[in-house]
């Protein structure tokens, strides 16, 4: 029998399809969680952060603070008597590793939940697997929204919460003319769309909008454009190493922090420490948490954490605190799920459903009371504005008067509203697993 080209192609494509079939995810096609929890036995959770590579700077801290939180919970008796057992993996800042490790954590280690990811790209890489296996992802950082899955709980601020106070505050303090600078990927662009809504309400004027490639350290042209535009303040969504280069070159270029400060969504304690406090001093940050927050819970958290072996990097920051609270959201939700269903019947999906409305009181959460929205499973929180001081710490200059509701589709009312069962379009159709 001779093999013709056509026959070969046919066989090969059928073969390829068959091989790929288990890996292609179709909405609604969910696998059952192949494990049960037993009273007194350890409860496994996956910690999926990068310990090496370009994302290691924020994500290593996330792993450390999760280990700290888990130790704290276990020392206090665990969850209904069961200790939490972390399965720590290194995602190596590589999206392929994120997805393969997710599969491993769920299928081999049978974790009840995964705490992981920092960038939106890695989250989008692993969500199809998490959804197919009907597991649960705790995503403990800020993001852009515009997603409605039934398998994610986020404890950071959404784009609609993040800049809501910052823009009017800056317009009020410094003037209406603003220049937007961001890294070139999805989160800064979506954050800027939200910021424009607040800017319009505050009667501000957008002078320019520039995006820098991720990881780039050359801000010369952007700074010259800013100098020519003469804004009253700069709104920045530059992330990572670029953010440090931006602040350094801002000062080196002779731009003045008191007449043209940078209002950032990213430049926290860890960044100011890395750039040198003299480059960060005077600029502003909006975040739900600052190390300098004055409340007994935070003071205890900072002292105990920095005194523990996990506090080796010497500072706490908003991303870290959002990760810390996610551990307590997990604890609260799992306790509720066990009370509702009995421990043998708990599945990751039931933990997610039980998380609706879970409230962390001010004596647990260092940023003050927060709770999980019962529809979109993001967090109600109080955004705060801090100004960086000469020593690199932040002084809180404004705190939102009340909790701000998370809304992943706030600027896209035409697309729909995220509910617990899926994305409800204006015409009444319900779509699940929207990423």
């Amino acid at each position, binding site marked *: 029998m001779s093999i013709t080209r056509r026959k070969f192609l046919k066989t090969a494509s059928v073969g390829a399809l068959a091989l790929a079939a288990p890996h292609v995810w179709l909405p609604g096609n969910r696998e059952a969680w192949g494990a049960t929890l037993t009273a007194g036995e350890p409860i496994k959770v996956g910690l999926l952060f990068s310990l090496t590579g370009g994302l290691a700077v924020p994500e290593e801290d996330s792993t450390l603070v999760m280990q700290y939180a888990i130790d704290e919970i276990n020392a206090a008796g665990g969850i209904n008597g069961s200790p939490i057992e972390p399965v720590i993996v290194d995602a190596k800042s590589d999206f392929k590793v994120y997805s393969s490790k997710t599969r491993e954590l769920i299928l081999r280690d049978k974790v009840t939940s995964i705490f992981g990811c920092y960038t939106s790209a890695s989250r989008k890489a692993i969500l199809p697997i998490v959804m197919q296996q009907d597991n649960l992802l705790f995503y403990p950082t800020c993001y852009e929204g515009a997603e409605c899955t039934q398998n994610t709980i986020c404890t950071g601020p959404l784009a609609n919460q993040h800049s809501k106070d910052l823009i009017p505050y800056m317009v009020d303090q410094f003037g209406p003319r603003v220049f937007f600078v961001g890294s070139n990927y999805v989160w800064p662009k979506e954050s800027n769309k939200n910021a424009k809504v607040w800017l319009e309400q505050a009667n501000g004027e957008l002078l320019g909008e520039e995006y820098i490639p991720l990881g780039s350290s050359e801000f010369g042209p*952007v700074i010259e454009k800013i100098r020519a535009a003469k804004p009253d303040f700069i709104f920045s969504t530059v992330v990572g190493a670029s953010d440090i*280069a931006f602040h350094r070159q801002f000062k080196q270029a*002779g731009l003045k922090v008191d007449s043209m400060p940078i209002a950032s969504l990213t430049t926290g304690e860890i960044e100011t420490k890395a750039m040198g406090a003299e480059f960060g001093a005077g600029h502003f940050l909006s975040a739900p948490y600052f190390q300098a927050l004055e409340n007994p819970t935070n003071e205890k958290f900072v002292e105990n954490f920095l005194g523990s072996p996990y506090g080796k990097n010497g500072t706490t920051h908003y991303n870290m605190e959002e990760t810390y609270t996610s551990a307590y959201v997990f604890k609260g939700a799992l306790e509720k799920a066990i009370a509702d269903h009995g421990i043998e019947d708990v599945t990751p999906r039931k933990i997610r459903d039980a998380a609706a409305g879970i409230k962390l009181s001010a004596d647990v959460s260092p940023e003050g009371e927060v709770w999980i929205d019962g529809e979109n499973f993001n967090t109600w929180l109080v955004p705060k504005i801090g100004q960086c001081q000469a020593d690199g710490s932040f002084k809180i200059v404004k705190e939102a008067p009340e909790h701000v509701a998370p809304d992943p589709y706030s600027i896209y009312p035409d697309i729909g509203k995220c509910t617990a069962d899926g994305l409800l379009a204006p015409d009444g159709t319900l779509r699940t697993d929207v990423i």
Partner: protein
Amino acid sequence: MDPSVVLSALVLGISIGSIFLVAALGLAIIYGTAGVINMAHGELIMLGAYTTYTLQTFLGVPFFLCLPLSFCIVALVGIAIERLLIQHLYNRPLDTLLATWGVSLVLMQGVRLIFGSDPKYVQLPAFLSTNLDLGIVNVSVFRIFVVLVAALLVFATWYTFYRTRFGIMVRAVTQNKEMAASFGINSGKTYMLTFAIGAGLAGVAGAMFGGLNIVLPTMGMSYVVEAFLMVVSGGGSLLGTILASGFTGQMQSIFAFIFNDTFARFLIFLMVVIFLRFRPQGLIGSGDTRR
């Protein structure tokens, strides 16, 4: 268009070009003379930055003294790499590529083990963080400093390779290793010293980039692509690298002014690809005498 905007674009272009040049200089020397494609060049830059950080933070060495010290220390690392690994691979270019890439991974992880992966920073003397207002253009002192150091490094390199006895030996070995050996030149030692100088130049580059940017184990990767671009489009020679850096720096600055940063990079990569399609030997390079 406002003349001061055009002028500051040109001044900035010189500055960007000088950063490219400082990053590429060490690579050009190693590639141009020994023909070694040194994939670990970015990590040698990173080592320079960490050397400066260590000297400054733990020994209190002033920043200006850190530059020559970084040169020496990274040059010693270069000698070690050359003696232990590269000298056995001179006739196998593909293997040097893989071996140096391996070295880059070892250096990156080694630094991570010693210093951790949290970012460090190099403290600059206060006057380098100021700017110079000349009325129509406004330049940061640090950028002027980088241009001056670049000029100094270029002069020193040119002098070493074209005006000293060692330079004659290097060029003789580059042209014909066997013939040079028959005149009593120790080619192994010449290669070793060349590699050391190239590594040392990467060390100085790292010391300066630590002041412009952030010190991280992965920082070298962002410079090495641009460095290779300059060396390849320049043809591997010193003059070619200078011209390529200057030209690309200006293009980057001007395009970023007219369009934006992302599009400027796209245009530059496109131009380099088209240029190399029609002139694969680069700006200045004979192209046929590569061993």
